[in-house]
């Protein structure tokens, strides 16, 4: 008998049909993967299982009994735990304090939490300092705390909504190990992901969702990966594309991985830098940033991005990339050093001045920095240029919506209309909207894309990198910060590696350099 049995589940949000007659079973002792594009309904399905939302139709049974959770508390009581795409930690409390939250006992036992933490660290290799404050942790570390929090409750079914999107390679492997071990212990795991390599490593079965419906559920023994991609996207994808291969985590077709990205590349810096007399899109010299405790998060960073090239910034998360992105966005002032965009000195400039200098910024944290989720899509698109739509201070909303609809069509932002709140869009469409805004600025010379594909799935990743490449074709210099090394190698012309706030090396984006880059990322082997 299946541990979790779902029959005919349907859910609608306003005009958006999120799920439409979804049925599937999850057995005890299996890792069941959910695969699907953005907006396919994966997160909604997880949220229904965890009791965050209630289904409009259909039924669920857990351990043989009808299961209709009124809220997450019901699900937790029965032994269902969930790690959400977005964190549910209290930022100004320590790790240990967060772990003690939501426990049923009236007395907080720090010792128990620490012991549990120690046990999990030993058992699964999930290590984190219990006394650090959450807001000081990197995104990857916060994700780790979330997972630990779930595992402390000893769940029977663990639901993981895109957990690997923010993790490093070793951490992903560790997490997949945890999934396997949980399954071996007779527990069930639902894993939402779009990385086929991960699915191949852990899944017993995979269910593919598209537009709220189940396309197929396949057993992974002897499954055809390309067939899975096809069912997920609903069409044949350009199979030779190295970026796509990197995104979904499968090996590209040997030769294609090397040649495909090079095909459309302009001759860039690495050929003969001395001949290039154009004004660089971005010049950073001796950029240093010390945080409130005086720790150098950025240490004399210098780099140049020329027009028409994509420079990738590789590095394990928490080595200064976040600070670099924040300074380039104008949200943090550097301690010292200089920044010039298109030849214009901009160290310590306001976001407004940076935008005016022709820099598009796609920030790392989409929800906190890139958009106002409660405002409409149109409002988000034009928040920085409202004067274009106002007369005597009054907004012409009709004209604004029309322009927004046009921009959404151009950038393929899929939504029922420009006046819906930004929060109603899937992550991929939100990111496309952010790109639409940042790439339609006047007189552009530079684009910063910080972790632009985090949490997005194949279709959206393809679209995002398509935009970034066409920005390069337009002659923009692009600085691409990402913790996905495979994607960096596939997209960038040149890669700089950051380690502990310093640029420790620079390499061409030849796939053969992958190991050397990996070594530099972990602090070994300066080249």
């Amino acid at each position, binding site marked *: 008998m299946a541990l979790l049995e779902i029959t005919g589940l349907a859910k609608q949000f306003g005009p958006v049909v*999120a799920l439409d007659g979804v049925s599937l079973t999850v057995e005890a002792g299996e890792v069941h993967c959910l695969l699907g594009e953005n907006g396919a309904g994966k997160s909604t399905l997880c949220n229904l299982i965890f009791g965050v939302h209630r289904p409009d139709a259909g039924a669920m049974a857990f351990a043989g009994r009808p299961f209709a959770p009124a809220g997450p508390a019901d699900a937790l009581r029965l032994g269902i735990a969930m790690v959400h795409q977005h964190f549910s930690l209290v930022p100004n409390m320590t790790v240990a304090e967060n772990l003690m939250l939501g426990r049923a006992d009236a007395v907080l036992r720090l010792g128990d939490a620490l012991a549990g933490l120690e046990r999990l660290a030993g058992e699964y290799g999930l290590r984190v300092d219990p006394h650090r404050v959450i807001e000081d942790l990197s995104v990857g570390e916060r994700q780790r705390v979330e997972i630990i929090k779930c595992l402390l409750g000893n769940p029977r079914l663990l639901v993981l909504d895109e957990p690997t999107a923010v993790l490093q390679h070793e951490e992903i492997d560790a997490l997949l190990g945890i999934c396997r071990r949980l399954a071996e212990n007779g527990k069930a795991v639902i894993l939402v992901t779009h990385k086929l390599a991960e699915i191949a490593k852990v899944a017993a079965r995979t269910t593919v969702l598209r537009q709220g419906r189940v396309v197929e559920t396949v057993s992974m023994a002897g499954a055809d990966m390309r067939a899975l991609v096809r069912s997920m996207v609903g069409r044949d994808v350009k199979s030779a594309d190295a970026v796509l291969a990197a995104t979904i985590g499968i090996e590209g077709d040997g030769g294609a991985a090397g040649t495909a990205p090079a095909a459309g590349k302009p001759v860039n810096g690495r050929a003969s830098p001395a001949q290039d007399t154009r004004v660089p899109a971005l010049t950073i010299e001796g950029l240093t940033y010390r945080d409130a405790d005086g720790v150098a998060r950025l240490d004399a960073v210098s780099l140049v991005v020329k027009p028409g090239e994509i420079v990738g910034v590789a590095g394990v998360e928490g080595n200064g990339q976040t600070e670099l992105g924040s300074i380039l966005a104008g949200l943090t002032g550097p301690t010292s050093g200089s920044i010039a965009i298109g030849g214009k000195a901009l160290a310590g400039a306001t976001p407004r001045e940076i935008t005016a200098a022709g820099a598009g910024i796609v920030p790392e944290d989409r929800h906190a920095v890139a958009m106002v989720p409660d405002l409409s899509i149109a409002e988000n698109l034009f928040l920085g240029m409202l004067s274009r739509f106002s007369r005597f*201070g009054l907004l012409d909303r009709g004209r604004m919506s029309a322009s927004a609809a046009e921009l959404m069509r151009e950038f393929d932002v899929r939504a029922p209309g420009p006046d819906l709140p930004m929060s109603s869009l899937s992550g991929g469409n939100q990111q496309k909207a952010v790109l639409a805004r940042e790439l339609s600025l006047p007189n552009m010379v530079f684009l910063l894309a910080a972790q632009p594909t985090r949490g997005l799935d194949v279709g959206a990743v393809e679209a995002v990198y398509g935009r970034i490449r066409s920005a390069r074709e337009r002659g923009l210099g692009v600085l691409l910060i990402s913790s996905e090394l495979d994607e960096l190698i596939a997209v960038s012309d040149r890669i700089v590696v950051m380690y502990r706030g310093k640029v420790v090396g620079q390499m061409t984006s030849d796939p053969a350099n992958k190991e050397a880059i990996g070594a530099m990322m972990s602090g070994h082997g300066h080249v």
Partner: protein
Amino acid sequence: MGRTVGSKLGPLRAYLPLQIVVPVLATVAAIAVGLVIIASTGTPLEDALSAFWDGMAGDIFNIGASINRAISLGLVGLGFIFANRANLTNVGGEGQMAVGGMFATAMALHGAAGLPFGLAYLVPLAVGALAGAVWGGFAGVLKARRDTNEVISTLLLTFIALPLVYWSVQSFNLLRKPMSDVSSLPESPEIPDTTKLPLLLPEDQTSPLHVGLPLAILAVIVVALILQKSAFGLKLRAVGLNSIAARRAGIRSGSLIIVALAVSGALGGLAGAIMILGQQYYLTSSFSSGYGFDGLVVGLLSRGSAVGVVVGALLFGFLRSGSINMEISAHVPAAVVLICQGLIVIAIAASAILIDRRARR
């Protein structure tokens, strides 16, 4: 994710009447409880009720007086929702009224009386609004530059403003009227007739309704336009919802915060100036007598809508008139009326929560 979509596109037509019906029922229920309390104090109910009705709307004079009260309450409430659009909570309406009234009095007594074309009263009103703007804007500067919580700063600035007014009517060097054998109270002299707000219905002289009414209506329209239709209103909302994203989008959130609190304070200052120039005619130390705080409640209950402020201000204006008369002629303690007022606030707030919950389903 779809929750906001649902509530926005929900069955608006079924939702709107509920939004009106439930608070009205809640208010009636609260008044009923109040009547029970009044009955239990031993006052005959019909005496209390008729005194209450007389005070509210018994004759043309009382109606005018009620509306005049509503004007000041409404202006403070408007100021509250204006700042609140940027997620700023201005609880200092009382203090902003106090400085507004004080500076308007000073202007009326010293300099404005001889001005032509209604400037004799318009200039003191503007000066009062400016004083309120400075008072509110100062809290904005503290917030923008030093990230001082505006709830605390506006409240503490109130505790500075009220003694300032007291001082100004205590000191003969400031606004206190010269000592004479008939009066030695600490208050300002009466302002010159030219600086008093003209009555709206001058021919019959029975209604105290003054030109503050059209001014307040104008303020409601302007504030509603700014909040709903203007680019500035959208920027306020963006800063209130996500100040980092707003900053990244190029909005100068610091100056926006200062302007928001300054405008909020200006509306409070205008309310104070209108109270002096429109009905009291001289400054006393406690002339604002809680109107600032009642106005804050009006703003809170309106849930960010200018129309809501109008409704709330009228409700509280009429209630206040009724309760004053009930105390004078039926000897019902004012405390009972204050209790009723508190019950109404709770009832309306609770019904709002109820409606929200239903809309979310």
